């Protein structure tokens, strides 16, 4: 396989981008662990990291996370087989259900975080 195989086709390229998005996401999550550790010292000694560079990095990582999630959830309809009354549910419906669950989970987690943060 030539080293540049992933540049040969749009599909390969998008796949590599999808896989690559996991890397900055992992870095951001490591950073989150550092922040949690710092916050463990108590509110008086904690100041959140708010430099412009970090905000820009976070926004980019958010876009990557959205791309990763959307590509992943769109595929769930292909992967998950659910039968209702002996007939398989249409894959579009399964993907839609996953997106709804994703939205509900995001709202609930956001709500809980804001609630405890106050």
């Amino acid at each position, binding site marked *: *396989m030539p080293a540049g195989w992933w540049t040969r086709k749009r*599909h390969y390229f998008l*796949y590599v981008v999808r*896989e690559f998005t996991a890397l900055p996401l992992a870095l951001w999550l490591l950073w989150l662990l550092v922040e949690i550790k710092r916050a463990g010292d108590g509110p008086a000694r904690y100041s959140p990291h708010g430099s412009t560079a970090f905000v820009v990095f976070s926004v980019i990582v958010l876009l990557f996370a959205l791309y990763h999630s959307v590509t992943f959830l769109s595929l769930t309809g*292909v*992967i*998950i*087989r659910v039968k209702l009354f002996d007939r398989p549910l249409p894959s579009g419906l399964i993907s839609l259900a996953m997106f709804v669950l994703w939205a509900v989970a995001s709202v609930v987690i956001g709500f809980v975080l804001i609630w405890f943060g106050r």
Partner: protein
Amino acid sequence: MPEKRITIKATRYDPEKDEKPHLQSYEIPFYDESMVVLDALNYIKSDVDGSLSYRWSCRMGICGSCGMMVNGTPKLTCNAFLRDYWPQAIVVEPLNNFPIIRDLVIDMEDFMHKLKSIKPWIIRKQEIPLGAGEHRQTNEQIDDFRQFSQCINCMLCYAACPVYGLNDEFLGPAAIALARRYNLDSRDQGLKQRLPVIGDSEGVWECSFVGECSVVCPKGVDPAKAIQQTKLDTTMRFVLPYGNRE
């Protein structure tokens, strides 16, 4: 009106003479809109250069033997129309990711070995005597695996799969789709015999879901779907208390 012509650049390779494969150009008449790449190769072989080697048989997308790279994409050459490429030249190469035997002919030994390893036949714990009648199935039971039974073993999915290209130990798309076809068949009881092969690290777990196998599959088998469903199934067997059922 001058005769329409098209250029075919085909891989030539004679292991006894050539160090590596190279392309040879042939300009041939494009006399019929229904001509496919395989017709062009047949024209070259019969009228221009009889030494060109390639596989084919049915000319109707059934036998799966005429798969080649057409302008970099794995295609059945009997199903790739010249009109979709003309006036550009068409580059015809042997399927990616396989060793070349000669010209456009690849060595499919590895694929055959993998197909066999998943035991692609109905396995029964106890054979039912013929006199006991047929194994009946409902339409819904057939629908469960119908899509995965359409495979014609053309190997286009292997040529499209970068994971197989990087690691030829990977069981690969068509073999896993075929395993799923039998595992979903209500008459089959061979899941446990196939699990060590499909659940292996070189089985479904080697796949990182590029998805190109399903894009190039000429029969709509969707091997990527078979692989991801198998991943989910094998995981469920592992985590659910009743998972290790037959």
